[in-house]
């Protein structure tokens, strides 16, 4: 499917709205959040500069998927910020009235640095196979098949290594967020 006009994407949205709602619900497990995301998706579709979209359905689905991940990331950062506030609690920093600190670049940089440090440390501590597979795939950009060739293991072996790495890194990021 390829539709060349802005109307086209909006029409696509109409066509797939029910499916998108289903996806967002399955993805979040929360009807209210799914509805909210669907609204946001609609707004983004309308703001999108016009231009041809190849494979419109997959395009919308990916947009929806990305929005869910963006929210997860935002939550992860908020946890880190909350932790920082807890660490540096002062009389005027009451919980609940923390401003959404878009402008506090120093803090954001600090959080980014801590994320980098957490990831790097966690990667370094992975079991050897998982670490190599992860580095080649995620940092060097090799495909699973290329990683398999490079390491002389099967593709499913790569997937197992990646699963170990993901599980471990998730743990590390969670622990970091909680502080």
């Amino acid at each position: 499917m390829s539709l060349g006009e802005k109307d086209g994407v909006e029409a696509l949205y109409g066509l797939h709205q029910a499916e998108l709602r289903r996806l967002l619900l399955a993805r979040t497990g929360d009807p209210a959040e799914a509805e909210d995301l669907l609204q946001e998706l609609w707004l983004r579709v309308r703001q999108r500069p016009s231009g041809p979209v190849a494979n419109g359905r997959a395009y919308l689905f990916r947009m929806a998927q990305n929005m869910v991940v963006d929210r997860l990331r935002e939550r992860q950062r908020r946890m880190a910020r909350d932790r920082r506030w807890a660490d540096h609690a002062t009389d005027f920093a009451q919980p609940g009235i923390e401003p959404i600190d878009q402008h506090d670049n120093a803090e954001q940089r600090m959080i980014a640095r801590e994320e980098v440090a957490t990831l790097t440390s966690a990667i370094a501590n992975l079991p050897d196979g998982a670490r190599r597979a992860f580095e080649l795939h995620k940092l060097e950009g090799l495909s699973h098949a290329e990683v398999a060739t490079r390491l002389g293991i099967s593709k499913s072996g790569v997937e197992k290594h990646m699963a170990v790495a993901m599980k471990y890194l998730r743990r590390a990021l969670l622990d970091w967020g909680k502080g």
Partner: protein
Amino acid sequence: MTAQSDIDEGLIEQALHWQTTLESDDADWNGYMVWLEADPRHRDAFDAVALVAATVDEHKDAVRALSEAHVAAEARRPGRRMWLWGSSAAAALALVVGMPMLRAPETAMTYASDAEASRSVSLAGGTAITLSPASRIVVHGKDARRIEMNSGEAYFAVKHDPSRSLTVEVGHYRITDIGTHFSVNISDGGFRVAVSEGAVAVSSDSTEGEVKVTAGHQLMARQGEELALSPVVAAEIGSWRQGRLSYSNAPLSLVAADISRYSGKRIIVDPALEAGHFSGTLVIGDGSRLLADLAAVMDLSVHAEHAGNGDTLRLGRAGGR
């Protein structure tokens, strides 16, 4: 998101499989939704995979730079992979912010600064190094007497101590300090050493003897050219640490290479300007104005070129296209 519970690796594997599958255009989105709906734990597994992937993607370059540092250390020290890395993030954080390094015998430690910030490194024996953005050095040995410099620019402040000396290697050149302050800059297929205090000696395998560079002088080594010694204003050496780039009669290609490092953009100097030189001071800021400022001062033009991979800017004569 059930943040606390551990997730079964089998489920993570399934999630990874779906994540990879969904990248293709004819992905089975229905199958994916059915999988998600089958068990709430599938959602958690997918959350985990997507979130880690997004976090890694966002920090890929920084993580890779640090991981390489680690790999470099590891390669020279087989069997003791963990010496540097505690399990706590604090250990890695110490590396990020450039604390004095752990002292392990016969190790090599890479220090790299990212594209946006300078970085200070303190070494054994009271050597203090400032790395300008996008620079990289490898420090050998626990007493840090041998430093390889790979890229960028670094300012070295070395404590005078007759009992020890420091060697900075650039390619097959060796810069030996005699208790001094100096700056080394690698760019444009060569390097230059500028001395603000004391003196250094520069030697290489391919040249006889050594060249002594004293305070207020710089030595330039460029591919295919003779070593060139010229005077510089000592106070301006390493002025990038205060946010300024100062040059006296520097080839434009060299200035462009510095700006390229600070701005992250590829810069081509028009061949017509090859013989051009620049004297003056540029304010670094966030790096984005440097080229425009240089062009304004020298009455040159900047054109964007779209030659394959990303931004390339061409510095040319004003009015010329």
